[in-house]
């Protein structure tokens, strides 16, 4: 019977390790084969005793108009109705090169959309929806948050897989890859 316990024990421990390696493998695959996008960001510098220090990243595409909104030189057009908690796909470029007009939609894009990022609607007010893409936190070594907060320009280089899931590859501070 001890062999049965031993076998079960080994199976559970192995599954825990497979789960951790799977999580690592999945994120590494996105970083390795995903397509690159550079996102403009405005970092803030919260500090959490339990999680260590990190910067919270807010993007140009974090707040979108519920119908149509101008973000800099771009116009994001919302296709269909969205509610809190819905998954949305936000176009970052178009195949036809018309990147001044980009779509936000609840169905996985096809056709004229070339590169898109998957997000989840956090809140919906009358004319603005807040979208989170899973790339809103960047963990940094203790005491170095100000370097990022005080920089003139901060961008994030993300890798995006075919399903639109994004992973942060690097932080670009004043045009240079930031070394943690």
């Amino acid at each position, binding site marked *: 019977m*001890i062999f*049965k*316990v031993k076998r079960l024990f080994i199976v559970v421990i192995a599954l825990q*390790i497979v789960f951790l390696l799977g*999580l690592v493998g999945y*994120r590494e695959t996105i970083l390795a084969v995903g397509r690159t996008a550079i996102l403009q960001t405005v970092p803030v510098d919260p500090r959490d005793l339990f999680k260590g220090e990190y910067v919270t990243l807010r993007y140009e595409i974090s707040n979108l108009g519920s119908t149509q909104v101008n973000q800099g030189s771009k116009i994001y057009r919302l296709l269909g109705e969205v509610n809190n908690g819905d998954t949305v796909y936000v176009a970052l470029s178009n195949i036809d090169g018309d990147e001044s007009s980009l779509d936000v939609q609840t169905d996985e894009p096809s056709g004229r959309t070339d590169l898109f990022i998957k997000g989840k609607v956090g809140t919906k007010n009358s004319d603005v929806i807040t979208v989170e893409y*899973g790339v809103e936190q960047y963990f940094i070594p203790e005491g170095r948050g100000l370097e990022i907060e005080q920089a003139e320009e901060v961008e994030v280089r993300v890798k995006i897989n075919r399903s639109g899931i994004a992973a942060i590859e690097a932080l670009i501070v004043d045009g240079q890859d930031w070394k943690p």
Partner: protein
Amino acid sequence: MTSETPNNDSAQDDGEIFERSEIISTVQSDSRQSWLKGRINLWRESGLITDDQSESIINFEAAPEDPIRLGIRFSRLIVVLSTLGAILIGAGIISFIAANWQGIPVIAKLALLIGGQTATYWVAYQFQFVRGYPRVGGAIMFAGAAWFGANVFLVARRYHLSTDNPDLLIWWFIGVLPLAYIAKSKAITVMAVGIFVVGISWKTASETDNSVSGLLVTAILLFAGAAIYSIGLAHLQRASTKFFAAPYLVGGALLTIVVTYMFTFDEVVKDYSRNSSVNISEMSGGYIALAAIVSVITLVSLVMTNWTSIRSEKRPSARLLEPAIITLTVIAGWFIAIHTFESAALYVVVFNLLLVIQILGIIALGVINKREAFVNIGIVFFVIDLSTRYIELTVDMLDTSLAFIVGGLLLLGVGYGMERARRRLLRQFGMMKVTQ
């Protein structure tokens, strides 16, 4: 399954029951000792026995108790020291990795985290199943389970995934629950149930913003509490699983009562219903399916439990009290989940009644089944509910200072009455000296 393993813990299971009965018998033998000493002194003073004889009798009667008492204390000390030691070592290694996070190459980080976790489990296995030190082994196993959770969060952090994510807790729970059964560890069962309760509560809080399903999502949490409790009841039906029941029963009862308490507030119901759809067809099909699945798990566990209980010799009141309260909770949950009425008042009345039934029920169950934790949970929530309703009633009626004074006097009076009632209840099942 583990009953044939060396040093194993049906062994440990029996040990727990043994320890409990030993505590009670120690308490009983304390009073027996003082009674005996009194009698011996009387016999000595009456000249029936000599001083030497009285001393010999006292020594003879006292001798067997010391090893038992020492054994119980040692056993607990071993568990406490081993758990603290294992956790300190694990925390030290993890904080070393976290402090040097950026300087360690990715592969080395992974090797340290996963290697450390595996080594902890290996040492735990050796102690618990091979070398015959179940308590030390169990403590190290607990540290291994905690290490797995830390690894989930550290890997998420490595890839800048949001760690404000209840899913991480759910993954941790799924990883450690089977371990609790294999290692027959109550500590890991408590950890797993605790993580699950916190995880689903957190998940619910983050999902209730959903515009059409706030009430439904919170009702699912109520169903989950009832389901966890029912699973605990199902564990009680077999000798081999009885050992694991308590964490489910306590976790399920706490979750159910807390969610019921939330729905007793007019503002909470109004706030959730403001964004909730009155029309069931507009609600999320996924949430409805989840609510149905959790309700079915609850009811199936309940039927299985009572199928066995029907043949038991317990009184009908003892057999039917738990199923009745759980069924009422599930019905009330669906009543609010499908959001039949727009007015919040009806829901508030229903859930206030349900809360009173749950509180009185859990106290009664604590007395009937001699579960001290239930009596304490019931009394704590009774006082919380009473204070809440008092504040609600008097906030507009009385002057603030007068309300505080009257409220304070009432609470002191209720506290005194409850303490007397609690002592009387606990004395009924012979635990007074242990818990006083």
